[in-house]
């Protein structure tokens, strides 16, 4: 029985794939009084559906591991249904319905974790609902303008209308992708969510915000250029959005570096990565959108890989803090490779596809002549090396710091299979950077009436600014590696294996297990001595939201005072209101 149910859920998790393969045509469903849902699959949505199709089964597999949490699985199914509805939406009502189903089902999934705190769940749901309601407000404005809920370019809106729409929709999607300063719900919820579900949150759900942003671009026929004039050498709105994205990326990167917890680090890194995507969307050219989509693809793969590996570590060691882990490379080698490939992709190092994506974005920034943005983006993507290193060093290298880390075994196969698949995908995409462009991204760009980016073959990535060949790069590197290793081993002399992990050059001292050798959570702490970084790390927007909450509670208390249980007051109030209104009428000459 349980096996059949599990198979059923796995089949459900394959539904995005089935949809992607099998969907053709159009479906409508009347809701009420002239409001209908129309479902259709645009190329843009198909791209994001692909991301969902990648994420859903890979996340489902570890979730199905015994003991299965049935409510989680049911909610996961609802979540997938909502997200597919959202992607298939041909009109804003179904878009919103999908959006909301996604919101509440993911919230309820968040509650399945024993670690979720009230503040976390509240901030998650309130921010996401705020996003949803902004979206709904935007939809209403859109409906007021066009008289229809269909998603289609807006013809001839006035500037204030455009601005209102862009603000409402834009804020909604920016909350969802978690840009600064609307991001504070992200780290804590990614951190405290069930470990596997964090992967889905980061890989798939945040992409829906990206989908929304690109969708928003399509609402305005002349994209960002028409909106609010030009500034410097580009569209002002795009410029603003790009800076929002890049500042998000920078701040989130530094926050990520200072984290002491694996999942929280990954959460901040997600914010940063989505910040890049936001920047690319802000640039808005064909190159940049191609880069944004590419980044989204890579980020999905990478974050799935990293969160699943980390979930495996947490499962096997029971530890999630950097200080409590270490030296797992010997005990969990496959997870090590998972995280390794993941951080290479995350850092955007060649030859993995993260580089291809970043290359497109960098080139698009040069193309747009936004060099300061380029520099800012470089700042955050180089600073990202530090947290990437921290992510692999603290759990896998160094010294084991807890009983859990000392005795861990390799993660069970439902965790390893997705990792291996993802590693293979990343590797393949890295060797053939043109594949993703030509097969996945170009249809979207064509549908958005932009110039496609496809090159002569899948091996190359070409732009007007030059490109590179993934196959050559990979073969040169691999050949060099084999050659170097071979030559090295040919040299005379013997390798001597260190007698113990504590056989270290330590100024003649003899470190022991008690010596604090593991440079885990402290890594990057000295960065706060750099004035700019220190300033960033000292400040937080949390105070603002806490203040808002406090004010709200104070207001609630104040107003709640009226509801004291005293009938005399009630009656007095009724009479007073009566008298005052009559009196006012008398004074103003009504009577």
């Amino acid at each position, binding site marked *: 029985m349980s096996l059949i149910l599990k198979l059923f859920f796995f089949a459900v998790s394959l539904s995005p794939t089935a949809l992607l393969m099998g969907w053709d045509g159009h479906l409508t469903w009347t809701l009420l009084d002239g409001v209908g849902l129309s479902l259709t699959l645009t190329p843009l949505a198909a791209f994001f559906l692909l991301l969902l199709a990648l994420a859903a089964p890979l996340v489902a597999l570890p979730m199905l591991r015994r003991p299965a949490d049935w409510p989680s699985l049911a909610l996961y199914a609802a979540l997938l249904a909502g997200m597919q509805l959202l992607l298939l939406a041909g009109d804003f009502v179904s878009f919103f319905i999908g959006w909301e189903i996604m919101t509440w089902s993911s919230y309820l999934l968040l509650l399945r974790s024993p670690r979720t705190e009230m503040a976390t769940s509240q901030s998650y749901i309130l921010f996401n609902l705020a996003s949803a309601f902004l979206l709904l407000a935007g939809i209403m404005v859109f409906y007021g303008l066009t008289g229809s809920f269909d998603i289609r370019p807006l013809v001839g809106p006035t500037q204030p209308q455009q601005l209102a729409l862009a603000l409402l929709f834009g804020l909604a999607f920016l909350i969802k992708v978690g840009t600064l300063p609307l991001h504070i719900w992200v780290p804590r919820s990614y951190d405290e969510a069930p470990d596997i579900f964090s992967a889905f949150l980061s890989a798939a759900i945040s992409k829906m915000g990206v989908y929304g942003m690109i969708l928003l671009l399509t609402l305005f026929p002349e994209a960002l250029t028409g909106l609010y004039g030009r500034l*410097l*050498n580009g569209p002002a709105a795009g410029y603003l959005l790009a800076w929002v994205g890049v500042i998000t990326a920078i701040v989130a990167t530094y926050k990520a570096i200072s984290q002491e917890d694996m999942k929280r680090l990954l959460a901040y890194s997600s914010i940063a990565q989505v910040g890049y995507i936001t920047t690319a969307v802000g640039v808005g050219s064909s190159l940049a959108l191609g880069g944004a989509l590419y980044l989204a693809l890579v980020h999905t793969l990478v974050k799935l890989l990293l969160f699943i590996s980390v979930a495996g570590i947490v499962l096997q060691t029971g530890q999630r803090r950097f200080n409590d882990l270490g030296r797992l*490379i*010997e005990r969990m080698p496959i997870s090590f490779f998972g995280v390794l490939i993941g951080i290479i992709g995350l*850092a*955007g*190092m060649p030859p993995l596809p993260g*580089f291809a994506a970043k*290359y497109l974005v*960098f080139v698009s*920034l*040069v193309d747009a002549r936004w*060099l*300061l943005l*380029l*520099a800012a983006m*470089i*700042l955050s993507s*180089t*600073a990202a*090396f*530090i947290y990437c*290193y921290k992510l*692999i*060093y603290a759990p*896998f*290298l*160094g010294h084991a710091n807890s009983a859990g880390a000392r005795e861990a075994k390799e993660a069970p196969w439902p965790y390893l299979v997705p990792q291996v698949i993802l590693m293979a995908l990343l590797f393949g995409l890295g060797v053939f950077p043109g594949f993703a462009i030509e097969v996945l991204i170009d249809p979207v760009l064509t549908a958005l009436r932009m110039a496609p980016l496809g090159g002569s073959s899948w091996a*190359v990535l070409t732009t007007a*600014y*030059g490109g*590179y060949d993934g196959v050559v*790069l990979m073969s*040169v*590197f691999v050949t*060099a*590696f084999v050659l*170097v*290793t071979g030559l090295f081993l040919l*040299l*005379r*002399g*013997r*390798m001597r*294996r*260190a007698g113990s*992990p*504590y*056989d*270290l*050059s330590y100024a003649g001292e003899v470190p022991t297990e008690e010596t604090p*050798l593991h*440079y885990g959570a402290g*890594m*990057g702490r*000295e960065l706060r*001595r*750099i*004035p*700019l970084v220190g300033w960033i790390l000292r400040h937080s927007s949390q105070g603002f939201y806490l203040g808002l909450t406090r004010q709200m509670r104070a207001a609630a208390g104040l107003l709640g005072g009226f509801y004291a249980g005293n009938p005399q007051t009630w009656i007095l109030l009724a009479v007073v209101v009566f008298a005052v209104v009559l009196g006012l009428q008398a004074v103003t000459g009504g009577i």
Partner: protein
Amino acid sequence: MHAILDSLAMIGVSYIMGFLFYGFYRQLNARVQRRWGPSIWQNFFDNMKFFFKSETLVHGPMFFFGPMIIMAGAFTTVLFVPFLKDSNWLQGYSQYGNLILIIYLLVVGPLGNALAVGSSGNPFGVMGVTRGLTRLMGLEVPFFLGLGLVMLQHETTSVHAIMAAQDGLAHWGIVTNPIAFCVILLPFIASQNGSPFDVVGAPVEVYAGPRVEFGGRLLGVLMTQNMMMSIAKLVLVTDLFLGGATNILVLILKAFALFVLTTAVSMVFPRLRTEQAVDFFWKVPLGLGVLGVILTVWLPWSA
């Protein structure tokens, strides 16, 4: 066949240039300090000595593969930087790459090695790595901004195209885009681990930093890649700003001139702390870069 010979030639040239340049550097340094200094071949001897150490300590497989990765990275980097222009030789695979790729390739190796450092379990090594990454974060911003100015100027990321555009002294990058050259100069020194910015491997403070656990042949590998990588960077900057070179002698000459310029800076300035270095990069070279952006992009005549 040509490709293989060419690759071997590039690796050989960069290695020989590497140890000779560094030998010269040690000589020059000694003379500045009023010493005789070692022979110009000293780096070669040191390197060979390490390669022929009879014992090499390893801390596990990752510790072994780290230097292999960094060496492979150095080879790849060298092979993706065109050494000469208008020539069939010393091109490697540079037509398959571009400037941004090279900049990233420069980092691949060190990051691979950082894994080895981490797996050694020596906190000093990891401290050094963190410092290195911090410095990298500081220097990349102005460095990339300067390169961005170059890419914008030539509207390409292809090093070949940039080289080809610098036809004659008047079109050298250093003449047509002096700000970009000034912007990248100091970060370039830092990327070469040059003196004011060499706190990463501070011998006493962090016990040689990332290299703390490496000895024997592995250290030899690290030395080799360091020399080759330095040459790759020198050649790259030569290509971008000094018009490239049509034959090997010109290449050596130009690279040497650039090398002397950077070493002259290195020799007279004392070491900065990491955060001082980063702060410096974000103030002086970056400020200069922003000025460059204002001049070349923002102002009305430039758009």
